[in-house]
């Protein structure tokens, strides 16, 4: 059920006039505590793991066909993706606690949003992540150990973005939504039918860059999907400190559809993202997807969520765990048996072990790397300082 359902029902080109959704932006919505309210959202799999009956829920009818082809094998695949991602994430958190990483931004609780949207993408689509998209990286085939270099402090990226069409993590929040929009403008100019997806969070939605990205993409009708993981907290700031109207409704003001999806429902995230990507490919412009989810852990290992949020809130979200939900579904439908889950446990432990080993043996960069790649065409000052520093280092040799 999209609240903006009448508008979202019929994909349309941006810039066209549309009737205001009857329930959009009424004063009542402005006073609602969005993070406490039980929101209406697109859901295909209930927290109990039961498939939503499309016939009884016409509001999801538009999106359900986008997962009609999903087989039990696929579901097991998504389950595996989520388990492996969570195991990787847990290992990284542990490694930070052991002093092996300087910082870690955990995705705990957001696996369905990331795997669902990530698995909706085609190889030739291009992804602009923020710094928490470890599950999307997994879907793109980026070796998870490559994500750890920047958190260990040996580089600022660690992968070639063009290999998997997965851009480097962006720390300044919201910046990458403009890069995605520009890239999508280029895709359209090239006449390609690929699409671009930009990830960001509820906190980033307060940044001007995100508004500018919405506007540019609407004005140029660019093939970009804005995928906001509303995980309810921007470090210690709750969503009511970020917005007065539900996030997905913002799209309407820019002239394109916005949809709120259950971010803990991998199937719904897949369906809605596929729907949005197809709009983009058809030349119908941008879409805002708000995946309504929850960050179960800290913002990063530097903060302490017990200082700013209630245990009851976290417990309520635990009941909506994306992984348990799919497991319940697989068990209830005979899609997987205990042996499958046990085997997956072994596999995820092996990943954890590999991550641990790779991080601990990750070499520090060469000292002279400070001066590398500052400029593509070289720069006299960098050359001069490189030579000075090399001479300084050389002065120690044999001098001890």
């Amino acid at each position, binding site marked *: 059920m999209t609240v903006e359902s009448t508008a979202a029902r019929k994909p349309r080109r941006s810039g066209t006039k549309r009737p205001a959704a009857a329930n959009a932006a009424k004063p009542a919505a402005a006073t609602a505590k969005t993070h406490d309210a039980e929101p209406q959202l697109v859901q295909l799999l209930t927290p109990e793991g039961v498939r939503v009956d499309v016939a009884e829920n016409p509001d999801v009818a538009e999106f359900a066909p986008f997962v009609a082809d999903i087989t039990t094998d696929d579901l097991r695949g998504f389950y595996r993706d989520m388990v492996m991602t969570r195991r990787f994430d847990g290992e990284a958190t542990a490694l930070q606690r052991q002093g092996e990483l300087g910082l870690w931004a955990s995705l705990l609780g957001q696996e369905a949003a990331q795997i669902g949207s990530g698995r909706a993408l085609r190889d030739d689509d291009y992804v602009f992540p923020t710094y928490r998209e470890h599950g999307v990286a997994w879907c793109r085939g980026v070796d998870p150990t490559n994500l750890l270099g920047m958190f260990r402090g040996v580089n600022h990226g660690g992968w070639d973005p063009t290999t998997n069409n997965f851009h480097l993590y962006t720390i300044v929040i919201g910046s990458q*939504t403009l890069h995605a929009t*520009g890239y999508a403008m280029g895709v359209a100019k090239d006449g390609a039918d690929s699409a671009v997806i930009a990830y960001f969070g509820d906190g980033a939605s307060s940044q001007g860059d995100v508004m500018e990205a919405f506007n*540019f993409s609407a004005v140029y009708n660019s093939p970009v999907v804005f995928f906001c993981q509303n995980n309810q907290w921007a470090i210690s700031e709750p969503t009511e400190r970020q917005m007065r109207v539900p996030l997905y409704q913002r799209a309407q003001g820019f002239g394109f559809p916005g949809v709120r999806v259950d971010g803990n429902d991998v199937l719904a995230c897949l369906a809605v993202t596929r729907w949005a990507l197809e709009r983009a490919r058809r030349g119908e412009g941008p879409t805002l997807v708000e995946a309504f989810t929850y960050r179960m852990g800290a913002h990063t290992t530097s903060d302490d969520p017990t200082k700013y949020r209630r245990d009851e809130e976290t417990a309520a979200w635990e009941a909506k765990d994306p992984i348990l939900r799919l497991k319940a579904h697989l068990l209830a439908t005979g899609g997987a048996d205990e042996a499958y889950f046990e085997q997956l446990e072994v596999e995820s432990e092996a990943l954890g072990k590999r991550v641990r080993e790779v991080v601990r043996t990750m070499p520090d960069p060469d000292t002279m790397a400070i001066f590398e790649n500052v*400029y593509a065409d070289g720069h006299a000052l*960098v050359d001069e300082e490189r030579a000075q520093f090399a001479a300084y280092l050389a002065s120690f040799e044999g001098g001890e």
Partner: protein
Amino acid sequence: MAVQKLTIAKALNDSLRKAMEEDPKVLIMGEDVGKLGGVFRITDGLQKDFGEERVIDTPLAESGIVGTAIGLALRGYRPVVEIQFDGFVFPAYDQIVTQLAKMHARSLGTIKMPVVIRIPYAGGIGAVEHHSESPETLFAHVPGLKVVSPSNASDAYWMLQQAILSDDPVIFFEPKRRYWDKGEVDVEAIPDALHGSRVARTGTDVTLAAYGPMVKVCLQAAEAAAEEGKSVEVVDLRSMSPVDFDGIQASVEKTRRLVVVHEAPVFLGMGSEIAARITERCFYHLEAPVLRVGGYHAPYPPARLEDEYLPGLDRVLDAVDRSLAY
């Protein structure tokens, strides 16, 4: 005919046209760059000839302009962005400094950022607030950016094409009060290196180092000084990042005196860096401390006061006298 007499504005327009003809990936983006041809008409006629897909009128949002240009560069395009005036670049400063400048380094060299940001800058045209500033130091200080400013039509023509060809982001400051100055442009010449300085006038007693709009002032000062029997050399820096310190050093080793002139505030300005470096390099050659002439540590004043704020002939000549007095 290879040599043409062009205004700086026309030279920039011809330069953009040539770059667009030579590479279909070159795009122009900015506010009013299309139908209007830019508020200074630098992009005049380009949209008519290259179409709206290549000369792109944008929403009025500088961060959006630069941010989307970064995305287009990631897709293989070479955007040339126009920021309408110097003081309007700051909404885009975040994208320029935190994203554009660092993308190549962050990607360990796999990503190139061939983005040119053209900024009509500096004062002298009687404009209102935010239309007359000289923020070059703020960009030159940022690793990853290159910063240049032509002072004449030939450099305008060649340096802009060189900037567009560069795989590094280039902040291209255009001295707006010189747009209508004419000069000879040899469109078949082999241009000087983009980041090298140029001796604009030879002399033996004092070196004046300047760039952009101040080069003309320094040349006039040298002319006036000559009438008083002083031989002043003028070095046009052309590039503020990197700075051609070798070129300045060569001049200073000859004249033994240096005055740096710019419109931007003196404090922590280009002159400060040049004074420090040249003092290191030429300590035993210098007969006088390196002097600086420039703007004050105050907001750029209302237009009725800008003639007092901007370095003019007298302030430059005063500095020349002070240098010679040591």
